[in-house]
């Protein structure tokens, strides 16, 4: 055992961190080596003196104002409320905005809300343009009806490409939305405001309508969603 190893063992012996065999070994060395015994005494005294010095300094400190400062800070935080939330089995009440946020985070709900907003916007723009140009407004198309879960029934149409749809169809494109696998178009015949709104889905490949998206059936078809369907 070299001097450093011996010192480490001695230090650990002082701290009571050696096992029985190691302790016996150190005690044997201490009996035969006076220098080692002196070193052990020095280590012990060092610890006591350090303890005394730091404790003396701490003894003169007034902790009362620190305590009050901590309590003031804690009275603002109210930790019991935070802790109880994790411990109570009952679900805490969720605020309106939290609920809305959690809903928007679901893709299906977000999509439905997007369609609703598109419908509202479309109705608003047609109302304003109609008013400006003196054209009759389309009040009969209630924006609320253009939602993902209550799109009115519409006859099946033959598949069209996006190009042919925009050029040839006498429809009014209410809104075009980009989705993961192409585009969705809200469509309504231009001359019939009472006609049902149709959702058209165009895939990215060649503009042909297809059923690539798992969320939408092959398009163009009438989208009939039941409440609770994942879009």
């Amino acid at each position, binding site marked *: 055992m070299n001097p*450093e190893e011996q*010192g*480490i063992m*001695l*230090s*650990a012996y002082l*701290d009571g*961190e050696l096992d029985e065999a190691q302790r016996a070994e150190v005690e044997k060395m201490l009996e035969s080596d006076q220098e080692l015994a002196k070193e052990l005494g*020095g*280590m012990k*005294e*060092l*610890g*006591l*003196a*350090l*303890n*005394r*010095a*730091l*404790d*003396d*300094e*701490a*003894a003169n*400190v007034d*902790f009362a104002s*620190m*305590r009050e*400062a*901590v*309590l003031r*800070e*804690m*009275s603002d*935080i*109210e*930790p*019991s*409320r*935070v*802790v109880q939330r*994790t*411990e109570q089995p009952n679900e805490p009440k969720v605020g309106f905005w939290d609920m809305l946020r959690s809903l928007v985070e679901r893709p299906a709900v977000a999509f439905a809300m997007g369609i609703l907003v598109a419908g509202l916007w479309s109705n608003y723009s047609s109302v304003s343009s109609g008013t400006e140009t003196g054209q009759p407004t389309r009040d009969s198309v209630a924006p609320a009806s253009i939602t993902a879960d209550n799109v009115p029934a519409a006859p099946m149409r033959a598949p069209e490409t996006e190009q042919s749809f925009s050029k040839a169809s006498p429809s009014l494109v209410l809104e075009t939305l980009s989705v993961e696998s192409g585009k969705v178009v809200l469509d309504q015949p231009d001359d019939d405001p009472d006609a049902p709104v149709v959702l058209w889905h165009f895939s990215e490949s060649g503009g042909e309508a297809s059923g690539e998206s798992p969320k939408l059936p092959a398009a163009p078809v009438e989208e009939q969603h039941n409440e609770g369907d994942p879009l």
Partner: protein
Amino acid sequence: MSSIEKPTDLVPRLRAGDTSAYRELMQIYERRLYAFANGILRNPDDAMDVVQDTFIRVFKSVGSFQGDAAFTSWIFRIARNLCIDRLRRKKRVQMTEFNDALKANPNALDKPALTGQASFQSPDKESLSRELGGQMLEALKVLSESHREILLLRELEGLSYGEISEILGVPSGTVMSRLFHARKKMQKTLSPYVGSNLEVGANES
């Protein structure tokens, strides 16, 4: 002191936000934490700030305290981290000041530096006993941060190597080795006093 509960017994009351439990816990640990922080930082104001911040952190996060962990180790780990943060901030400031001073006076490094060792030269024997405490604390400054914190956790708190290892995130073998080297360095720094005054102090107590 007999009316004060064991720290772990206070945990449910702390979690419930019981102000009297806050007070009791502070009374148990404030002096020990202060001595520890003061030993590391060697600045009474900074040490007091660390104690205050430690308690606030403890009370804020007592909900996440795992009952199987030692409460004292947990508190000292928080205090130790706060001390380290503070030292690092100070070092950054001091380094900036040092660089600024060096720019202003490029010959500054030619002068002999005042180190902890220098203050131990030619000690007056009559004042040794009176000054011993102060010198002891000064000697702490000579130690590296890692040696200082390990020495304080052991000598002040009497924590086991396992507990120190948990607080510092190092193996027990490292604790054992660092502790020996920290003691050795302190003894060397205090060599003018060790063997005479330390023994006097021991006889007096």
